[in-house]
């Protein structure tokens, strides 16, 4: 006996309401922690923000990536287990209760209900039977006569039987949502791709991991455009995208924020943008000599006329140490020896603007845009959303309906007759009390009229 209880203890604790409430509050507290500690910091940010002592605690509890941490997932798993165990334990009882149909009624029982009414009749109520029957039939979806003492009449009527099952729909829907999230994390991915205007790519860099996914097709950015309101606030980001399969155009779409493109389960969202150097025009001047103007496409070596040298823009910075835009220019000598320097575009007189024998001046910088796409594949989304819709249906039904049951007994007594009515609702609400008293009134007047 004792052993049996011990074996059962963890199981029954898992199914207890105390556990559910504690779990809900612990989940709330855990989520709260995650809003107090910045999430998703890099290694570098972590070390600069916390002392080594604090950092040990932060990383021990994964406070910097709490929602993906083992313990938070464990709580979610416990919630799922709690729901499953509760359901397994209670659903059969509920079903039995619903299925059980009482066949007889002892009027004694009705005097024990907290919600009841009784009144005496002057005569045997035999004549009123039909009127009462008719009224019950009209007011309740389900109405049954029960066996009782000879000469008496007993019935049970009910409404909204199914509403007691709705709470199981709510609980199942939470499981469906968790399942959808699980499937998404198992079979989906989320990442970024930056595509310069005019080029195509099929490589997605995953978030939070040093990994990339190769798509079975390519995405080309034909055009990126940004527009502003007069106030300077951004109005719209827009990218014209083309999906390419083996170089063949398959699909063409313009995407905006809030209006993504989906192809083969992979969705592309407009998420950011940036500028890159397309081409620069520079002027080179030797200490004694005429200046030479050259157009330098980004990272393409260009021969310097009248010499054996080749010159190339290797790098570009929008703001070099607060000195404005700068080009990293390399000059290749005949034997392939490079020599290079950063050239400040906005400060033509800076003494360091030279490579080898040449003074370099930047005349024009032509920038292109790249579009920043967030890329996502999540086969669980529809499961999650269905789970949510199910949750709402279940909640609405649970909240706004209840299982209401009324028992009625009517029979002869020595002084004439007596009516006993008792009621019970799955939600112990004042509204049902009113409904019950109202029902009794109508019953009385219907019976008296008969």
């Amino acid at each position, binding site marked *: 006996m004792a052993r049996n209880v011990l074996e059962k203890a963890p199981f029954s604790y898992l199914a207890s*309401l105390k556990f*559910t*409430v504690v779990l*809900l*509050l612990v*989940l*709330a507290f855990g*989520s*709260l922690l*995650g*809003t107090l500690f910045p*999430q998703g910091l890099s290694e570098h940010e972590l070390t600069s923000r916390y002392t080594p002592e604090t950092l040990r605690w932060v990383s021990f509890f994964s406070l910097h990536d709490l*929602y993906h941490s083992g313990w938070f997932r464990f709580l979610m798993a416990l919630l799922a287990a709690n729901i499953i165990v509760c359901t397994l334990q209670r659903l059969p009882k509920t079903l039995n209760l619903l299925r059980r149909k009482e066949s007889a009624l002892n009027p004694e029982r009705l005097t024990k209900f907290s919600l009841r009414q009784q009144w005496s009749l002057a005569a045997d109520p035999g004549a009123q039977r039909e009127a009462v029957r008719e009224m019950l039939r009209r007011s309740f979806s389900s109405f049954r006569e029960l066996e009782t003492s000879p000469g008496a009449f007993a019935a049970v009527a009910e409404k909204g039987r199914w509403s007691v099952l709705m709470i199981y729909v709510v609980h199942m829907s939470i499981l469906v949502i968790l399942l959808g*999230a699980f499937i998404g994390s198992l079979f989906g991915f*989320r990442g970024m791709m930056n595509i310069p205007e005019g080029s195509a790519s099929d490589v997605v860099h995953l978030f939070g991991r040093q990994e990339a996914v190769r798509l079975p097709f390519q995405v080309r950015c034909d055009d990126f455009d940004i527009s502003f*309101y007069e*106030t300077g*606030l*951004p*109005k*719209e*980001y827009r990218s014209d995208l083309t999906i390419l399969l083996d170089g063949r155009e398959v699909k063409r779409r313009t995407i*905006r*924020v*809030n*209006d*993504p493109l989906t192809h083969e389960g992979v*969705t592309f*969202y*407009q*998420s950011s943008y940036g500028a890159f150097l397309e081409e620069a025009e520079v002027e080179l001047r030797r200490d004694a000599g005429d200046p030479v103007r050259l157009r330098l496409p980004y990272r393409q070596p260009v021969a310097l006329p009248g010499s054996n040298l080749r010159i190339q823009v290797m790098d570009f910075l929008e703001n070099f140490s607060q000195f404005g835009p700068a080009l990293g220019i390399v000059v290749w000598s005949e034997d392939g020896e490079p020599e290079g320097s950063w050239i400040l575009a906005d400060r033509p007189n800076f003494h360091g603007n030279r490579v080898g024998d040449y003074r370099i001046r930047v005349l024009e910088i032509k920038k292109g845009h790249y579009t920043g796409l*967030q*890329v*996502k594949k*999540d086969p669980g*989304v529809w499961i*999650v*959303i269905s789970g*949510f*819709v199910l*949750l*709402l249906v279940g*909640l*609405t039904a649970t*909240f706004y309906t209840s299982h209401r049951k009324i028992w009625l007994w009517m029979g002869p007594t020595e002084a004439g007759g007596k009516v006993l009515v008792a009621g019970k609702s799955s939600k112990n*609400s*004042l*509204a049902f009390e009113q409904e019950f008293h109202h029902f009794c009134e109508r019953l009385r007047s219907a019976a008296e009229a008969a």
Partner: protein
Amino acid sequence: MTSSFLLSLTTFAYLVCSLCYLAGVTFRFRPFLLCGTATGAFTLVIHSAGMLLRWKESYDLGFGHAPLSNLYESLVFGAWSIMLVYFLLERRSKQRALGVIPSVLAFLAMAYASFSPEIDSRIQPLIPALKSNWLIAHVITCFLGYAAFAVSLGISVVYLLKKKDNPGHGSSGVLGMFPTSRQLDELNYQMILFGFLWLSVGILTGSVWANSAWGSYWSWDPKETWSLITWLIYAAVLHVRAVRRWRGRKVAWLSMLGFASVLFTYFGVNFLLSGLHSYAVK
């Protein structure tokens, strides 16, 4: 007539309305309560007209959108939702005295929106991420939930005062103007259920929107997380009430805890934690 005139008028009218309710309760004089309901209902009409006019004005400025986009507009809409939900309750319960706290809350929200120097009441164009019809669905559903929780807070406060004042049935004095403890408990439960349902719809519409705007239905952004915390607290309340049969005091305290979480979701996250929902974002 401009929307800002109508909304300023609304602010003062809610003050009058809350004073009427307060006078009715304090002097135990029911006609004042009726006056509160009348002023409140009339104000709600002006308030609605003000919001609709602001909606139209935004179109006249060339970047039309529903007036639900920044802190000012959300406070104005919040006040409107509180009064709407309260009047639904008043109609159903036929109890006017409960109007005190909702009308004060609506007045405070309007006053804060109108007079705080930190709040910009100009009509601004929408940034790209907000350009979605889901904005309307999301804000309306969330605020219906918040409003129900605000009304529930009012009921809880009255419940706790009442219990303290007179532990037995049927209080006398000022608190005698309010429904019985049992009715208060029942109304409180109904408001929590109503709020919980709308908060759930709000979270759903938000996640559908986020899924189309940011590619993820849930990103643990502080506001999302706090709405989940609120949801978990009220879920706990519903569980203890349904299964443990907790009533009255304990439920009232928990409802106040839940509303504190609502306030933090709304204000705390805006001012203290940054994220997608921060109205301070440029």
